[in-house]
């Protein structure tokens, strides 16, 4: 039983990593109607930004806050202005293809700048391990899980309960009507991309100690995040958390009690099942116009 809980807790920690990245998908979709297939790279780039600041002598926390500024500028404002704004009028598919291209550019650029080898990354929660009746839980696992939950529910409250959050969703659902209602469309859209960049930086801070800083770390992370978002519900932030945790725990259970050969297939199998029997995801709702 102890082993079972060990596997489940570790899976939840890994799943919350997927969830943080999945939030990038759900947020941009909910608030701007954008699907960003460079989500994994949006996590990878801040990781290297933090490493760059640390190499200049800045401590981890300062590097993180400096990275927040850089990410807001580059991954928020820059992404919106150079990719989304020009492409959005052509529909979702061209934008999807553009973000796939962007992910390749980001990977190649990082490889050229930082090399192809994995680099160690400090853990903000330290390396202490707690023993709960035989189940070993690291400070990092706990921290990641708690932060993911706080971020997910905080974001949900922000989008549903605040004027700004609702305005952001209104802009995503019907830009013209939102403009007629006096909402500053440009500003709301920027807020969405800025929050996405901040979330990606936070995800980088939490996941890189485990994934290791590497130019291609976003590939599997991005895929798992996308599957988590689909499973949980693409238009629901809590769905991202649920989807991520389901994948993380299922992978670990399969690896322990079936065979590790099936680990990576679990997420895809769950994805297929959800698409077949609950196309909107476990917590997703049929899209409705609220504005």
């Amino acid at each position, binding site marked *: 039983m102890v082993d079972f809980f060990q596997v489940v807790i570790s899976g939840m920690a890994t799943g919350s990593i997927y969830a943080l990245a999945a939030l990038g998908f759900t947020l941009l979709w909910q608030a701007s109607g954008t699907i960003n297939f460079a989500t994994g790279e949006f996590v990878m780039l801040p990781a290297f930004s933090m490493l760059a600041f640390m190499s200049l002598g800045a401590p981890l926390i300062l590097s993180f806050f400096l990275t927040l500024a850089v990410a807001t500028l580059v991954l928020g404002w820059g992404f919106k202005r150079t990719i989304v704004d020009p492409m959005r009028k052509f529909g979702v598919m061209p934008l999807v293809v553009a973000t796939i291209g962007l992910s390749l550019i980001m990977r190649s650029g990082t490889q050229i700048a930082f090399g192809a*080898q994995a680099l160690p990354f400090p853990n903000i929660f330290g390396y202490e391990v707690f*023993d709960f009746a035989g189940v070993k839980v690291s400070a990092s696992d706990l921290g990641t899980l708690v932060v993911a939950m706080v971020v997910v529910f905080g974001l949900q409250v922000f989008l549903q309960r605040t004027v700004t959050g609702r305005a952001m969703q209104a802009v995503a659902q019907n830009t013209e009507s939102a403009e007629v209602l006096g909402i500053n469309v440009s500003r709301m859209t920027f807020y969405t991309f800025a929050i996405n960049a901040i979330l990606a930086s936070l995800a980088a801070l939490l996941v890189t100690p485990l994934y290791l800083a590497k130019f291609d770390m976003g590939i599997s992370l991005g895929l798992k995040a996308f599957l988590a978002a689909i499973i949980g519900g693409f238009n629901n932030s809590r769905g991202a958390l649920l989807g991520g945790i389901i994948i993380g725990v299922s992978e670990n259970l399969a690896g322990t009690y079936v065979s590790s050969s099936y*680990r990576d297939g679990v997420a895809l199998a769950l994805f297929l099942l959800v698409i077949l029997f609950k196309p909107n995801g476990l917590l997703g709702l049929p899209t409705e116009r609220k504005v």
Partner: protein
Amino acid sequence: MQAHIFKKYALAAALGAAAVGFAVPSVAADTVKIAEIMELTGPGTTSGTNFKDGVNLAVKEINAAGGILGRQIETTVVDTQSNPGIAKGLVQKAVDNDVFAVFGPVFTGSIMVSMAVTEDAKVPNFVGGEGAAITQQGNKYVFRTSLTQTDAMPKVARYLDGRKDVNTLAVLFVNNDFGKGGRDAILKALKSTHVKVVEDISTASGQVDFSSAVVKLKQSHADALFSYTNEEESARLLRELKKQGWDKPIIGETTIAGQKVIELAGPAANGAIAHVGLTVGAPVPGMEKFGKDFHAANGYAPDHNGIKGYTGVYMLKAAIEKVGKFDRQAVAAALHGMHISAKEHPGVLMDVTIDGKGDLDRESFLVQVVDGKQKVIGVLPPLSHK
């Protein structure tokens, strides 16, 4: 009139260009071309980058000392992306480019599909892989730069047999050609020992979460773990082992105590024991200088792959000098059965014998990670000195 002048100058320019073009082969005759087909991205990044930097350091040294038989080495580096299909295509391109020798790939899977190309073209191919199958195909042009799994694993098995505190063992391997080859070799070598394998755990290349693997390991109640995974996975495994409080011996082959793993795993690497064919910590003349030179050139400490690449170039040089001419077939033939002494050829760092299959025989070492550094805890003689 102007058109006439233009034509005259154009003709002169064309003749000049042609002359330059025809002069190129005479320049090329002063060089010997080698190709580096390396894993510079993907799961093999650490191995391939180390191997490439080792080759490049040797090339730089040899060129500075006058080259091989007076010819400068000209090298090109390409990235296989750790993909066997791409590796094969790149080796074909190198062969078409008339290289004298090919260095790489490092991953056994890539070597297995690309070495047929160098064999068909009769181009000596110095590879970094340790998979036993590489030299079991009868390929006369493939040469290792390290011990094979079938040579290394009996040494590991003998070491485990000598440990009275290890009666049961769990084997954890990465599910690729490298990992499966190592697993098969250790299982075979352990059959003649008192050590019983009680768990056989397969893991995926690029796996991030090792919690389920470590839970299975703990459930086996094995006295020790034998791990055979690539660098990044080894680092993640060591961290998970530390997290879950694994306090029994962790033993592996080369990778688990590699410099990159130590860097990535941090304190979690302490205590890991590995049999290594090559290590900068080896008590042999020239190794310390190599380690310093490598670090100065590349900004990081080399692992065994760095030494493989470096010594591989010097093996080629020794063979060409023995033959006395740039004849690929003669050089490949000379390498089989050749003994290269480190006294005569300091670049090989350690005395080495190459057998008729392209396998190497030389001393190897047992190392343990102590305070974040490899410490040699034993020197194991060549198999021929048993």
